[in-house]
């Protein structure tokens, strides 16, 4: 029996990452901020995947979080980053709760397609709203942090700190969740749904909870990315964005709670460098990298670590 050291390890990682945020060059801080914020979304996708829900439309909540942050800061004048991120998560939570009644009835490819359709509806609305800048989107002013003003490079580093804190906090919470009764039931549902019903648990309720969790986390991630980039456009809700999340989730495999974060850092790094050095063929580079991982690392990036030290117990 191993003692579960994941939570202390995550806490240590948080301290380490915060320290790194002070010394790393500014561009790397930016890359890591985006990677962790998107990794947050992937964490949600992975938790949903454990219960058998593969969402090809997580861009819906990602976009919702991003646009909530953008609209609130531009039209209501709220500039506090913490409040904006919390609001992004809250709006996604409400939407996820409402749609969850509907979505929890679907499985497998139908769930995937329906979530895709919902995210494309949001995309269509955003593209059509000329007040929201249509396909161009709009800019966000740089946020404040609990009353403190931090701009330029300092602002970047502070936002990085906030993102890392939120991400690791969520990772800890989700790590606890997958060991909670609802989390464990999720895995049982994936194995055999009808037996879970026989045992007296409401499958729909467990899936609903899981779905809302995925939505909240995606909303938080969307708000963080919007603040980091300082700009949002409807592409946040497009299906290719959602496809990336699923890809990184598959790539990192459901082995460890830190795997999706690592996966996203790798993915963003590949993309950033491909975009920088091969601006005309960066999609090809990303595609080939995807194929290479699927072909040669069938159990995901994390297997490189797992192979080194065979740990028992899943996730």
């Amino acid at each position, binding site marked *: 029996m191993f003692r579960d050291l994941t939570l202390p390890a995550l806490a240590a990682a948080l301290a380490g990452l915060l320290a790194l945020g002070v010394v790393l060059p500014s561009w790397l801080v930016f890359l890591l901020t985006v990677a962790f914020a998107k990794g947050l979304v992937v964490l949600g996708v992975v938790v949903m995947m454990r219960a058998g829900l593969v969402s090809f439309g997580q861009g819906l909540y990602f976009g919702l979080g991003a646009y909530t942050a953008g609209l609130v800061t531009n039209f209501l004048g709220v500039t506090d980053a913490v409040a904006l991120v919390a609001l992004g998560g809250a709006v996604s939570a409400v939407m996820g709760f409402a749609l969850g009644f*509907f979505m929890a009835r679907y499985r497998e490819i139908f769930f995937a397609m329906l979530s895709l*359709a919902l995210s494309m*509806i949001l995309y269509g609305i955003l*593209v059509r709203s000329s007040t929201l800048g249509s396909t161009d989107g709009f800019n966000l002013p740089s946020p404040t942090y609990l009353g403190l003003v931090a701009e330029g490079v300092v602002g970047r580093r502070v936002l990085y700190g906030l993102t890392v804190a939120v991400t690791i906090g969520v990772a800890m919470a989700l790590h606890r969740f997958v060991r909670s009764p609802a989390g464990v039931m999720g895995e049982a549902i994936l194995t055999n749904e*009808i037996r879970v019903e026989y045992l007296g648990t409401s499958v729909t309720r467990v899936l609903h909870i899981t779905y809302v969790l995925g939505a909240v986390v995606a909303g938080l991630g969307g708000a963080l990315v919007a603040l980091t980039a300082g700009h949002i456009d409807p592409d946040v809700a497009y*299906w290719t964005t959602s496809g990336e999340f699923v*890809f990184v989730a598959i790539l990192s495999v459901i082995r460890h709670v830190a795997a999706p974060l690592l996966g996203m850092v790798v993915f963003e790094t590949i993309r950033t460098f491909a975009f920088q050095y091969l601006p005309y063929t*960066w999609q*090809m580079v990303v595609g080939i990298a995807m194929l290479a991982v*699927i072909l040669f690392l069938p159990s995901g990036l994390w297997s490189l670590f797992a192979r080194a030290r065979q740990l028992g117990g899943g996730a």
Partner: protein
Amino acid sequence: MQKFYVILVDGTIYFSWLFIVSIGLTLIYGVMKILNIAHGSFYALGAYTAASAVGAYFAGNYPAAGSFLVLILAGVAVGGVIGFLIERGLLRAMYGRDEIVLVLVTYAVFLVFEDLIKLVWGVDPYFAYQPYALLGRVGIGGIGFAVYDLCLLALAILLGIFAWWALNRTRQGKLLLVVIHDREISTAMGINVSRMFTATFVIGAMLGALGGALTAPGISVVPGIGVDVIVLAFAVSVIGGLGSIAGAAIGALIVGLARASAVHLLPEVELFVIYAVMAVVLAFRPQGLFGRAVARKI
């Protein structure tokens, strides 16, 4: 009344396009259970190849009527070759992996082709308007329509009838239906499933490329035309019930009419009316209109 008529005709034209574009996708899903995102690449490849071929054809001063044949042959040829290479070279190694992994494989293929197409054809638009202009326009009921669009409709209907005939009235088609029904038993009965898969993927790719080729004369062929087609074809196939040819036809008709109505009555919702229809259909029939409900394992 006039408006109603226009909606009907526009919707029907849009239907024929949607059906031609989606039939390959639904065929591949029906047989192989692969949700093929690379279908968008086949469409784009078909459009580019056809545009180049038609351009070259007209530069050579051949009789103009032959351009239709060039258009179709160019699309089918490029789809067949690329489809064969992808199935044999890549997908073959992936069978047996999770359905979602296969979706991601085709997504990766799609990304690769997006840039490959730009490398080959550049980023400037291509035009192959000649076949479209050649047929001229015709007035029906006081409204002018491009004859080319009406031909597309005829072609879509022919394609549908042909697909039905090929599946239900030929030996190979019947064998394919058996494979769709139960892959393992059909292997045991001596059907060469692996060859069936190759054939299906090649035909599906041909149909996707043909869709692009037939669309090319009516649009300007630019980078990124494949990306929207994918989700449209998904929506059509899902509404009809994934894997059902009749379903794809009904799905295309519903989507076509819904979009034409939106364009003429409520332009603001045009972009997402299709997905709204899809959500509504799935709300009432989770497996799509023509999909079979699958027994749940206990």
